[in-house]
């Protein structure tokens, strides 16, 4: 199961990279993806998550081929 993970803004800088491509187990969730890519760092409460460019909660399930993104609070406009 192959998943693309994207990071934006300050989180991208903290991660030191813009994306990851991971092979997850069969069934997984956004928070499990976070655990995989963060090497045990807890997900900050204000981090937002999306799957395939739609907002989701951290508990949302992730399927093969999904694009998962993590980013800080938005500051446009």
């Amino acid at each position, binding site marked *: 199961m192959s998943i693309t993970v994207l990071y934006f*803004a300050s989180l991208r800088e903290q991660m030191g990279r813009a994306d990851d491509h991971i092979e997850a187990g069969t069934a997984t969730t956004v928070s499990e993806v976070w655990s995989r890519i963060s090497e045990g760092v807890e997900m900050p409460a204000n981090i937002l998550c999306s799957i395939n460019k739609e907002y989701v909660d951290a508990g949302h399930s992730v399927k093969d081929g999904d694009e998962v*993104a993590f980013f800080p609070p*938005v*500051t*446009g*406009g």
Partner: protein
Amino acid sequence: MIQLRESRFDPWLELQAYQDSLAIKGKYGATAVFVGSMRDFNEGDEVRAMTLEHYPGMTEQYLDKIVHEAVQKWPLLDSLVIHRVGDILPDDSIVLVAVWCAHRASAFDASRYIMEELKSNAPFWKKETLTEGTRWVEKNTPS
């Protein structure tokens, strides 16, 4: 129409050209516009420049969703949303939201709704260049 722009735009010339292209002359009685511009001062510090990051694909899709919600809620005849991305200087326009309606209440309500939803949820992130160093803007103020 929804557009992301990588270079400076003049909101008033954009409005003139866009309105001129509309086939609803004589139908709209009310146009409400909001323009957000870059200030040279924020949170007590001088700001020299700014970079606006976005999530290509999701940002456009989210702006589209906001405008569709507004169309469900109010009788909009047309709308225009332009948002800058990339490198920005003080006094540059960052965002333009305009709506055309028959009557004023829906124009006022819809333009404000689109702006508030955009500020709250559309995936954009500002990084400021100060006199010394840079910083990410941490959150938008609620209106």
